[in-house]
């Protein structure tokens, strides 16, 4: 199995922490507080991020912000086409999203397809007042008219490169890494797939 | 017409012969067996014959005799006719077949027997010996006109396809048949114990959830009939024996001097009930494929002569009768073209029989028990000869079968032992291409 070659580390642990802090402050500013704000993390590392942002929000505003997890596998647009079938995981949102200010949280924003699927999923679960998007990394190459409201770091990449976010809760370490472009399409597909839990 | 078969290993168990010899056929009869090369003149000049067959490295034996074949004509010509069935027989090295009476109409009277004999004379590639029914319409109630059937040419009687359930009728059939010195052939199963069963009752039927047919179904009828054979002193023959229990009882009956004989079909020594796990309806037949304990008993029975003959129970069925849900599929498979290959591959390669014994079970032994004037290469005998290669490997392709039907579970099997030429009455009726 070919090892992916790391091109560069774009965020380290302190960098991620600073991004989380800044995003939390921006959420407070934009929404004028955290009343009616809920965070919904997209599986799987978006969930960890959402929890960290929620913790930071609690620190800032001294109020609890509910966190839910959304699995978008059933809303993907590549059903039956992908090389391997992704595992369906549970959606767990223990509160109503009706009339709430939902902040979707994901680790990497790439083509925008994951966000599109997440919006479809959200609409089946209720009627939010507003939906905002927070991502740790925006790597460009949008294929749909989607944009993030809160961005940890903008990272220009070539399409063949891959961006991987590692979070301590799941991976034991906090870092964000770019992998080099690979030559073979199959390898590229494998690397792209492996880089995030879902193509986005 | 003179045919010389040169240099083959002539195996003629009836005459205890196994030697490399030249075989000369003249006017439809075995004319002579001579030292190899002796038919050639000085300097090795070829002899004066109409046909010269080079059998060097091959085996020359009597044409095989199948005691149990369903030719389906009259009535089900869509499945098989006497023409196509005898052609399949010739492909399999068979030069004589006994035709079971469960046609439509049933062969329970002279008219149908006459028809079969006439058709066979006109269209048949090999000799056809009709078997008449035991009971009228095979309903198991009243005896058929057995005397007339024998007079018309039937060599045995049977209600095959069905058992004779009524013991009194079986007794009377045995008694009456002894007048004509013909065997009474029983398709041995108890219709009630079998019920709606579709496969052997055992571990496999338990796993598959199919209604099973216990071995006891065959055994109770064989047990009953042997007692009746003892009572009447008549010749009782068990068709397609498949269970260890029945083999054991036939062995004991023979040891006690009763006139009891038996045959087994190749599928009952080549396959077990495990084959049904594929749900392939070509593994559905009556009696069913049994578990390995019974298969071993059948092999042992063939080895020690308890089972006298290998008989195919060639049972053609149309695709629509077979390509349905297992419970609804017709019973039976074709078998004329694979019998020799299976016998060689499973029994001879498997060390159960040697080549000569195997040939005996296909030739002189069936003829001996049914008193048919065939199955030998004695000088003066009918020139029914098969030239075979017992070691040649080939793959059975059912799509190229001479039979009209395609219901065989052996499609694609690699077999060892192939028929090369078949001669009936001194005429080459079939030859392997290439």
């Amino acid at each position, binding site marked *: 199995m070919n090892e992916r070659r790391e091109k560069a580390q774009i965020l380290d642990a302190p960098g991620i922490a600073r991004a989380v802090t800044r995003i939390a402050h921006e959420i407070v500013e934009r929404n004028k507080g955290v009343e009616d704000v809920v965070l919904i993390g997209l599986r799987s590392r978006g969930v960890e991020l959402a929890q960290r942002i929620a913790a930071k929000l609690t620190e800032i505003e001294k109020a609890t912000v509910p966190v839910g997890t959304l*699995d978008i*596998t*059933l*809303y*993907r647009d590549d*059903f*039956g086409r992908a090389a*391997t*079938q*992704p*595992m*369906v*995981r*549970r*959606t*767990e949102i223990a509160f109503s999203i009706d009339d709430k200010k939902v902040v979707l949280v994901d680790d990497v924003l790439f083509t925008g397809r994951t966000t599109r699927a997440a919006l*479809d*999923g959200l609409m*089946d*679960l*209720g009627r939010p007042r507003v939906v905002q998007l927070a991502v740790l990394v925006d790597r460009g190459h949008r294929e749909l008219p989607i944009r993030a409201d809160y961005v940890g770091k903008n990272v220009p990449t070539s399409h063949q490169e891959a961006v991987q976010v590692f979070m301590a809760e799941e991976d034991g370490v906090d870092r964000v890494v770019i992998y080099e472009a690979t030559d073979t399409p199959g390898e590229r597909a494998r690397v792209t797939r492996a880089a995030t839990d879902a193509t986005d | 017409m003179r045919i010389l078969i040169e240099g083959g290993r002539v195996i003629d168990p009836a005459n205890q012969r196994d030697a490399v010899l030249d075989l000369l056929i003249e006017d439809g009869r075995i004319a002579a067996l001579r030292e190899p090369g002796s038919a050639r003149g000085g300097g090795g000049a070829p002899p004066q014959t109409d046909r010269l067959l080079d059998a060097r490295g091959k085996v020359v034996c009597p044409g095989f005799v199948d005691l149990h074949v369903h030719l389906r004509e009259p009535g089900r010509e869509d499945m098989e006719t006497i023409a196509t069935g005898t052609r399949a027989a010739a492909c399999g090295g068979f030069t004589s077949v006994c035709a079971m009476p469960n046609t439509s109409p049933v062969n329970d009277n002279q008219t149908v027997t006459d028809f079969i004999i006439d058709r066979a004379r006109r269209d048949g590639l090999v000799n056809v010996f009709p078997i008449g029914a035991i009971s009228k319409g095979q309903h198991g109630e009243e005896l058929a006109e057995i005397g007339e059937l024998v007079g018309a040419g039937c060599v045995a009687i049977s209600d095959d396809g069905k058992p004779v359930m009524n013991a009194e009728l079986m007794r009377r059939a045995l008694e009456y048949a002894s007048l004509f010195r013909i065997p009474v052939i029983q398709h041995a199963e108890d219709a009630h114990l079998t019920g709606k069963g579709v496969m052997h*009752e*055992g*571990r496999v*039927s*338990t*796993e*598959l*959830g*199919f209604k099973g047919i*216990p071995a006891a179904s065959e055994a109770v009828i064989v047990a009953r009939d042997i007692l009746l054979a003892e009572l009447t002193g008549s010749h009782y023959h068990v068709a397609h024996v498949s269970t260890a229990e029945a083999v054991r009882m036939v062995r004991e009956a023979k040891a006690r001097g009763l006139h009891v004989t038996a045959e087994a079909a190749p599928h009952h020594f080549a396959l077990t009930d495990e084959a049904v796990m594929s*749900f392939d309806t070509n593994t559905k037949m009556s009696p069913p494929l049994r578990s390995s304990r019974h298969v071993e008993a059948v092999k042992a029975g063939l080895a020690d002569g308890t089972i006298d003959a290998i008989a195919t129970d060639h049972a053609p069925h149309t695709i*629509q009768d077979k*390509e*349905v*849900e*297992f*419970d*609804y599929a017709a019973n039976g498979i074709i078998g004329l073209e694979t019998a020799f290959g299976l016998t060689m591959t499973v029994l001879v390669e498997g060390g159960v029989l040697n080549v000569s014994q195997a040939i005996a079970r296909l030739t002189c032994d069936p003829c001996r028990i049914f008193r048919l004037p065939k199955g030998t290469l004695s000088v003066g005998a009918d020139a029914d000869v098969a030239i075979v290669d017992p070691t040649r490997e080939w793959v059975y392709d059912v799509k190229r079968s001479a039979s009209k039907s395609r219901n065989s579970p052996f499609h694609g099997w690699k077999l060892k032992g192939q028929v090369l030429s078949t001669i009936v009455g001194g005429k080459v009726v079939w030859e392997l291409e290439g």
Partner: protein
Amino acid sequence: MGWTRKDLLGVRELEAEEIGLVLDTATSMKEIASRDIKKVPTLRGKTVINLFYEPSTRTRTSFEIAGKWLSADVINISTSASSVVKGESLKDTGLTLQSMHPDVVVIRHPVPGAPHLLARLLKASIINAGDGAHEHPTQALLDLFTIRERRPTLTGLKAAIVGDILHSRVARSNIFAMQKMGMHVRVCGPPTLLPRYVESLGVEKSFQIEQAIADVDVIMMLRIQRERMGAGLFPTLREYSKLFGLNLDRMKLARPDVLIMHPGPINRGVEIAPEVADGPFSLILDQVENGLAIRMALLYLLTGGQGTNN
């Protein structure tokens, strides 16, 4: 590891990992039942045909709802009202359906192996919803799922299946599935209703229900059918109930935390007393609910898996 089979014809041929994948996927699917809008777009544009040669309300409805919640188009064919009555063969019915390009055909049929026949003929994924006395794989999977909800580790659990094992596809599938997951299985019933060679399936055999249920984690009761009486297999429902019925007295012999299951429909008062069926350890209704999740999981896995990419 994703799902790679074209069809689900039985549990016997599945590996433990495959069973685990179905159960895990069903866990995620179950959440959809708690939503207000019970619909996800995943199987949009896919066609599921329910081909039922035997009457069934619960299984067929379960498959229908499962398909619809996944946004598939679901068609129900019950053969009593179709050309099968005119003598159309299964093969021809299958080929006719094939020309309508279904993605999944769910078939229930009285003869073992019928789904296998269809699977050979059709490009569609075939799900066996019950073939004679052979298998009912979705039932066994939902039964395992239900047990796993209460007992997360299946390995080492003991189950007793009580009733007409001889004619039961639910029993066979459960025997295969439970053993695959490391459970120990005991079957119980009168000798006429236990297959003669049942122990060759690797299960224990018992003719006494008191002994059979004493130390097990799960008791699965099977429905006893009136038709079996006529066949000389046992004298009356009354006698069967007296000897093999699961009533409150017998429950005292079982473990206090035993799980009670039944594939349904139940004969109240025959094989199971109403108090037991409705009691605190009865999982009978959970089974129905989980049937939906399992069937959704299977429709998802079969239509999305590589097995369907021809």
